[in-house]
């Protein structure tokens, strides 16, 4: 979509997880429950009362320490989970690159897996076939392209995953701290491709710890602190504030 307009809107969004991972029906809990009758409901607010809007073509960095809620925020945009309160509205096609190589089958080759992965990210049949060549060229796997991916090094797997991630065309591209892979040359290639995507006018939401990369790529940044939106503004300002806060810790 080249025209302007809103593509993402969070209105008063909260996401609560029950921190207890096991159900209260477990036999051992029933037995334990006989001695301690009251049970504490342990809630974890991954996202609390977050509101913001994103225009088409914006490149937005999502900053925050581990566990602050960046991934949950992106999963909410992707629709992989629903909010506990509030409303997440998204317009257009979303390509959620929240992990590399989702759906990879170890016994299948690079083109087969790239096709599976792209399809799971919402790419249609004709488009996936067209993209395949570019993805494989980007991943640069040499003689390994036709070998089952179980024989790949982790770097090669990541490159293949990245090849797909960098070529799925969508109105809104979500990227969750997956850039920290590959050698220096490959990272530069990814960065160049991200710049290209930005210049094509795609909307990018980009969770990262690489502040330099955020500064370079993004026009705006959201700082998430303990699930709440601490700061929202021009990328350079937010990164400065975030960096200062990190140094003071």
């Amino acid at each position, binding site marked *: *979509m080249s025209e302007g307009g809103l593509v993402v809107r969070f209105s008063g969004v909260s996401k609560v*997880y029950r921190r207890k*991972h096991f*159900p209260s*029906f477990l036999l051992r809990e029933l037995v334990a429950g006989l001695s301690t009758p009251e049970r504490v409901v342990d809630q974890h607010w991954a996202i609390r009362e977050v509101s913001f809007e994103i225009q088409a073509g914006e490149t937005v960095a999502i900053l925050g320490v581990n566990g602050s809620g960046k991934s949950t925020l992106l*999963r*909410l945009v*992707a*629709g*992989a*989970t*629903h*909010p*506990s*309160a*509030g*409303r*997440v*509205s*998204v*317009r*257009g*096609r*979303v390509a*959620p690159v*929240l*992990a590399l190589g*989702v*759906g990879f*089958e*170890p*016994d*299948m080759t690079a083109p*087969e897996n790239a*096709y*599976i992965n792209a*399809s*799971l*990210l*919402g790419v*249609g*049949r004709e488009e996936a076939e067209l993209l395949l060549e570019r993805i494989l060229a980007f991943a640069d796997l040499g003689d390994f392209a036709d070998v*089952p991916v179980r024989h790949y090094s982790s770097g090669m797997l990541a490159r293949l995953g990245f090849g797909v991630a960098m070529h799925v065309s969508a*109105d809104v591209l979500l990227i*969750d701290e997956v850039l920290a892979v590959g050698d220096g040359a490959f990272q530069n290639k990814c960065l160049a491709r991200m710049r290209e995507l930005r210049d094509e006018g795609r909307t990018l939401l980009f969770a990262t710890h690489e502040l330099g990369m955020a500064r370079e790529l993004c026009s705006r940044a959201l700082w998430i602190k303990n699930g709440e939106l601490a700061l929202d503004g021009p990328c350079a300002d937010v990164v400065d504030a975030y960096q200062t806060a990190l140094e003071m810790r």
Partner: protein
Amino acid sequence: MTSASVWRHRTPRGTIVGDDDAPSTQAELRRFVEELSSNLHALEVFTLGRFRATYRAQALGLLWPMANPTILMIVMSVVFGVVFPSSIPAYPVFLMLGLVPWHFLSHAWTDGTTCFLHHAEIIKRTSVPAYVVVIGTVFSHVLNMGFAALSIVPLIAFYPEAFHVSAALLLLPVVVVLLVALGLGLVLLSAVLNVVYRDVGYVVNSALVVLFWVTPIVYPMGKLAGLSHKAMLLNPMATLIQCVRVIVLEGAMPPPAILGAAAVSSLAVLISGALLYRRFSGVVADHV
């Protein structure tokens, strides 16, 4: 209207597409069909991927779904033909018609029970709804069943008199659809429960052992009389296999009571599974 211009709203109560937030069941079904059709390509790729990946690194590959029921058939033909002689004509054919649907159900159910956990990445990190993983897993076993059914073909040479070609064969696809509906329902039930209680796999394995013997697979349905025969009507596997046997072995339409019972019980299982999934789809997304 293209998807590019439509707003999707995620709310605590589910997804609303555009302004369509009518709370009726009809609107909900329409949204489901819309969502499923926009994920149809992902479903196809996932299904074929599962199917191909299963056989990729095997020496005999696709011969396995054919060999498995055949080996069981040979063992049982010896046991029930020589050790405990039975009076059923063309017993190996009779057995295969029960074993092939049985293999589908048992494999789809055991494999499907853990599908949310095995494919957690798809559920947690993509926009593909979790039920696509269920449908794809069951469908990959439908493809297996197609190959397993081919293993019946050589039996035509040995027992030509057992096979009856008739118009009733046209009903066979309906029976297969009901069988798949049953498989989907059972997998939805066990897969959702398995997200919270990881012991469901054991329950399914035990249930399959019981179900194998209470279902007329190695013995004919008519062997049971009175109450147990009526109880058989509640077992969708029993009535579905009976339908297949009547259609193929007798070249006749299955009795309406049997076909009706098969349809009602299979669809009841599917609807229960779908309702359980609908109630707990949020738990599935957050707890896998």
